[in-house]
């Protein structure tokens, strides 16, 4: 009993969310509805992108409107590697031979590395500004990638890239919706565990403090800039991984992944669920997909309802779904 009593209200919500997220696919699998499994996979991947953003936004308070850059880079890392593998052409020959690949672990590694490198560059420049300027400069960087992708005809330009067969993971048949879904669930679980550990670690505390009181953090000898830069890099590599998975789910990458609407949507997942809450992005992404699916079936103009709901959440339910349900206790942890 003491274990149960020791759980906070937020933990109860998280636990019920986990149960629902596992029960839905189980039910879908038993009643043979592969489409619902695909929806669950979408939720897991988008939630993963949100978990990435939540490190920068929730813990670090860095309002990045440019996470589509990392989401898209992950997507294009997958698209470029897989398209070379499917056409049996090397990525480059000089100075050393680089071949495409259809192996997910390799693609994931590339996606995370590329996103992290981009984040070092973007973060180092953006962190010189703050407030609205930070929001806008991150948006500007994402737009650069967007226009670059549109005009880069070698990889599809505006039309994007199609991959005919989903990439493989050793020991799994990724073409089976259930197995691919379980894989994304496992990745999401790992990312949530990482977020949880990070938020509790001394690094997470420093990052949190840099958000609340930059001057005091400097005074105790922590360089705000470095802490926040590391946060952006970690955040970007998780969102990049989500981008690679998202591209694999659709077997398609296009410049839309870089668009500012994508940045906005990732931010919507986090805020709808609850900024700085462990399961915030999961709740947000699940609700978003549920709404898209349910309202999309009811009305062609479902974005109106999404907009109204979002407005109500921002105006009246500060702290998102989890924040409202769990009350004011311990956010950002």
């Amino acid at each position, binding site marked *: 009993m003491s274990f149960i009593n020791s759980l906070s209200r937020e933990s109860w919500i998280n636990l019920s969310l986990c149960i629902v997220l596992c029960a839905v696919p189980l039910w879908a699998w038993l009643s043979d509805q592969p489409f619902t499994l695909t929806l669950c996979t979408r939720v897991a991947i988008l939630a993963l992108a949100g978990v990435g953003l939540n490190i920068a936004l929730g813990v670090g308070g860095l*309002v990045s409107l440019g996470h589509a850059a990392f989401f898209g880079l992950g997507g294009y890392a997958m698209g470029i590697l897989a398209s070379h593998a499917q056409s049996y052409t090397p990525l480059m020959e000089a100075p050393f031979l680089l071949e495409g690949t259809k192996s997910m672990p390799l693609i994931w590694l590339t996606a995370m590395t590329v996103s992290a490198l981009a984040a070092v560059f973007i973060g180092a420049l953006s962190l010189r500004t703050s407030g609205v300027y930070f929001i806008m400069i991150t948006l500007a960087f994402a737009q*650069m990638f967007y226009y670059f992708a549109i005009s880069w005809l070698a990889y599809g330009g505006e039309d994007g890239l199609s991959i005919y067969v989903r990439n493989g993971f050793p020991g799994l048949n990724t073409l089976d919706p259930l197995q691919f879904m379980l894989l994304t669930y496992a990745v999401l679980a790992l990312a949530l565990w990482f977020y949880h550990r990070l938020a509790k670690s001394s690094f997470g505390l420093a990052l949190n403090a840099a958000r609340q009181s930059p001057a005091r953090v400097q005074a105790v000898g922590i360089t705000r800039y470095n802490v926040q830069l590391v946060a952006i890099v970690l955040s970007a590599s998780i969102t990049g991984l989500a981008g690679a998975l998202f591209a694999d789910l659709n077997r398609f990458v296009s410049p839309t992944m870089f668009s500012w609407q994508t940045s906005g949507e990732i931010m919507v997942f986090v805020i709808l669920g609850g900024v700085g809450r462990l399961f915030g992005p999961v709740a947000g992404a699940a609700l978003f997909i549920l709404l898209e699916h349910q309202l999309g079936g009811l009305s062609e103009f479902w*974005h109106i309802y999404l907009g109204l709901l979002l407005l109500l959440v921002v105006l009246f339910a500060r702290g998102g779904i989890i924040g409202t349900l769990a009350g004011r206790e311990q956010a950002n942890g």
Partner: protein
Amino acid sequence: MSMILILEQMLNGIQFGVMLFLMAAGLTLVFGVMGLINLAHGSLYMVGAFAAAAVANATGSFLLGLAASLCAAAAAGALVEVLVIRRLYDRDHLDQVLATFALILIFSEGTRWLFGSFPLYLNIPDYLKGAVTLPGGVQYPLYRLSIILVGLAVAAALYLLISKTRLGVQIRAGENDREMIAALGVDISKLYTLVFALGAALAGLAGALVGAVQSVQVGMGEPVLIMAFVVIVIGGIGSIKGALVAAILVGLTEKLGGLLLVEMLSTFIEMSEAQSVGAIFSSMLIYILMAAVLIVKPTGLYGRSL
């Protein structure tokens, strides 16, 4: 590369710049006075364009269409301010971004619901059709030239409004110290609604003017919105003068930058290669410009230092 082409692109750049200024002026005023970041400004641009197209097509008068764009956008702006925006002034930027993102969704889908997904067309009136020959032998469309003149006239009027009138004094005072001007007996919430409606009207006018050159459709506001943000960030948020300078700078970069880039590259590499590289980078130029400005001056050209 011919001189005429450069001159023509320069005029295109200025035309694009003054149009961006109409958008950016409202954004930067709203940010300067109320501290609000408004993503839904592009929706007001769209509202203006739709109102102009609907009224001009129904009555056959372009000027009535322009008047309708001003009224409709100002009314939509005032309505949104009273219903939603005024609850956001003392929130952080994150809430403002989200709430106004939600407004975009509502505006876009609402317009799609009212007018359908097909674009509307707004015709240039007969008396503005054709081209004029400018000194230097450049043939330039009369309509585009009128956009430049209207934009410059609005910029001048805005300058007079802010520096010479009582309302302008209140706006400038509101930028400096909100509590103080409220304490001096100015109805601050009425002032805010007025400023927001003014910004909305300018955006609506921009939408109507551009609507006659391009098609009027849902989603036309967002690309312009992002460019207008680039403009106010380069100019320094809150500064009208900065917005004008940056708008022209961004307009010229957008229209002329690609051309000059290809020219510059072609001295190093082959022309065809220069063109393909130039095409990739020319659409990124204004974002590169913005990043460069922010790196050198983190609060923009005319912004107050943090």
